[in-house]
């Protein structure tokens, strides 16, 4: 059993190790948060899709992202319904409308304070709402009147919940204006707001038409296709696309309409994530944040390690004089750096878990600490410390035993 010099060094100098661990921890928490935000962007971008029931989706080739979906003729949905493998084909309306902050019940007349907010408005058929969660389906069934809406509890407080924080059952019955017409909140759902809007509400199709009057109802945003059990989605997609024509954005005359794109569920999610994480600056900011955090971590750990080496220059030089190789010395320093990474990681994981919950509760972002994030951050922490260790090695190799005499 060799003397575990690296471990002894880490354990021995508690103050310096504490500084190192704090430095690693700081960087690791930063990385955790950036990755959490990035994960939240990813999740947020697709969480409305997660609640929708479909195997294949029809949408316009001009679709950009959730809140800029463009439209296509509703007849395409009915065409799709004629396919033998298709169990259900439902139109799905989604647009951005304006929500007026409800007047507080006790505010005196003439002091109307309702600000206008952009809100995602979803239009569904209350007899057959295309939602997966049973709770959502049940609540959507209440949308029997175009003046009724369901409000998303994840909507930001500026949409005017009664308690000033979040829409709850207290808000049921509150009336306000959506678009240009009065609506009443009939229930509260939990859906999750997108990144392009801070709130969401659900109305029936007629209500949607009132909220977004610029969109005729024979132009739909999405077609949600549910296949018969046992039908291969890829095959069905090919058949459907063949029926509806190859999508194109050009307006050249064509025998087939070619105004619809057919996508499998996995493609929808992947494209939406790509859109937000890669194409918009949003995801890039967080990627960049990870790099910054890594850089900060490298700088701090380098400082700790190089101070440590500087303080033990004589000892390392003595080891060299004794005949220990540079390779051995390097392995001691690298072990020390990896130990710092591991020791710094554990508490940071716990703190980050708390911060995720805190930020998630506060911002409504779906901050989820997945094992993938935990593993990635662990790898980055080790990489970070190893990099600083390697940078510090230069100093170590300068240890000259001839200076000892």
């Amino acid at each position, binding site marked *: 059993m060799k*003397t575990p010099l690296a471990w002894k060094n880490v354990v021995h100098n508690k103050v310096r190790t504490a500084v190192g661990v704090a430095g690693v921890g700081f960087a690791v928490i930063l990385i955790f948060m950036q990755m959490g935000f990035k994960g939240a962007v990813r999740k947020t971008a697709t969480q409305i899709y997660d609640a929708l029931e479909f195997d294949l989706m029809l949408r316009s080739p001009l679709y950009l992202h959730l809140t800029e979906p463009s439209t296509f003729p509703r007849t395409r949905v009915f065409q799709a319904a004629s396919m033998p493998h298709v169990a259900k084909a439902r139109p799905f309306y989604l647009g951005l409308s304006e929500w007026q902050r409800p007047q507080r019940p006790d505010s005196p007349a003439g002091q109307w304070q309702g600000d206008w907010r952009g809100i995602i408005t979803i239009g569904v058929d209350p007899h057959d709402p295309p939602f997966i969660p049973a709770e959502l389906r049940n609540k959507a069934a209440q949308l029997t009147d175009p003046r009724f809406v369901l409000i998303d509890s994840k909507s930001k407080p500026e949409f005017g919940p009664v308690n000033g924080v979040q829409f709850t059952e207290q808000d049921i019955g509150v009336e306000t204006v959506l678009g240009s017409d009065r609506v009443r909140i009939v229930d509260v759902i939990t859906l999750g707001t997108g990144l392009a809007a801070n709130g969401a509400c659900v109305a029936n199709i007629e209500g949607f038409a009132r909220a977004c009057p610029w969109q005729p109802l024979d132009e739909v945003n999405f077609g949600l296709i549910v296949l018969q059990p046992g039908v291969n989605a890829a095959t069905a997609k090919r058949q459907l696309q063949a029926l509806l024509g190859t999508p194109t954005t050009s307006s050249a005359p064509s025998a087939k309409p070619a105004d619809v794109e057919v996508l499998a569920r996995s493609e929808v999610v992947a494209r939406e994530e790509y859109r937000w994480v890669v194409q918009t600056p949003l995801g890039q900011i967080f990627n960049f944040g990870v790099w910054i955090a890594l850089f900060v971590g490298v700088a701090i750990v380098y400082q700790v390690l190089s101070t440590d080496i500087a303080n*033990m220059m*004589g*000892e390392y030089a003595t080891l060299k004089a*004794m005949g220990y*190789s540079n390779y051995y010395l390097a392995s001691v320093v690298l072990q020390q750096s990896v130990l710092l990474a591991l020791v710094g990681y554990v508490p940071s994981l716990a703190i980050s878990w708390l911060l995720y919950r805190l930020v998630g509760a506060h911002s409504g972002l779906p901050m989820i600490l997945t094992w993938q994030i935990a593993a990635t951050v662990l790898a980055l922490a080790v990489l970070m410390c190893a990099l600083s260790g390697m940078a510090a090695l230069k100093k170590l190799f300068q240890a000259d035993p001839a200076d000892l005499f």
Partner: protein
Amino acid sequence: MPGTKPIPATSGVFTDGRQAPKSIKVSKLNHYFGEGELRKQALYDNNLEVKRGEIVIMTGPSGSGKTTLLTLIGTLRTVQEGSLKVLGQELHGATRDDVVRLRRELGFIFQAHNLFESLTAYQNVNMAAELAGMDRKVANDRIEYLLARLGLGHRIHYKPKSLSGGQKQRVAIARGLVHQPKLVLADEPTAALDEKSGREVVTLFQELARDEGCTIVMVTHDNRILDVADRIVNMVDGRIRSDVAVHETSVICEFLRQFPLFADLQTSTLSEVADKMMVEDAEPGDVVIRQGDPGELFYLIRSGHVDVIVEHDGDKKKVAELGEGQYFGEAALLRDEPRNATIVARSKCVFYTLGKADFKDVLARSKSFVEELRTVLASRT
């Protein structure tokens, strides 16, 4: 011996005639620091031989190059000019692997203890034992023996923080010795120690030198430990000014003391005289001095026997036989006369000689010179 460089008597080269293996052999070693115009020579044409099992003390003012020489011997610097053999390995042009291999046979004791604060005394010493690949049990016994021997038996598992300066230094000494090095290089090993533990350390050095054939070279200014040296090397300005075998010098001093004229001289004066003596040798039958020649040297017989032959009116007569420790040739120097006898070597002889000027210079310091002179002359016929 014309043509050859005279060898100082105190170098001990001729002692016993025994050619013990050399741990260190330095020849024509030069060393420079700096580059280009700033290049400054630190060592000039140094020659030194150290036998296995010898304890060598290097002295000299700071900046004299003794530390440079020590680091060169310890493979911590690269040899630039000349030859340096350590434990049989030529270091001029040695590869990294050779050097690293050699280093494991060396023990270093530095002035600063350089102990890892994070390791206990035992673990610090063990770092050296591990590197040498010592058997666990052997290493354990030796670490415990050395630490106990150095008075740290009760503090084996203490960390340096809980040890005094002297104790830390003793741990560092144990670390330098644990792997049974063949050569120990020490820089002021006893500087941080009180007299008692300093003595303990050098006694341990002596034991290692005697029992394990360990060669020890140390730089020290600690006069209390000079007595353990087999050899004292004094350096000044990058040159070895004197390289004295302590035992041989004391032998010479004893011999000189038997010479009545030198009897009242102090040891320090005698050793100065010894320093000035040179080696000469003779084969059986060689005429060392011839009657009637001018006298230039005073002779002390280190080994062998000679015949004293006086020639009187063409009649050669052997008047005496001299052996080890006896001397001849003084009369001609004292009276500035030609030699009054012929000396012929009977066997292979080694003489230590002192020049006329040096001889007279010494005599002038002797208070009882005149009386002694009379006695000496009176006792001669």
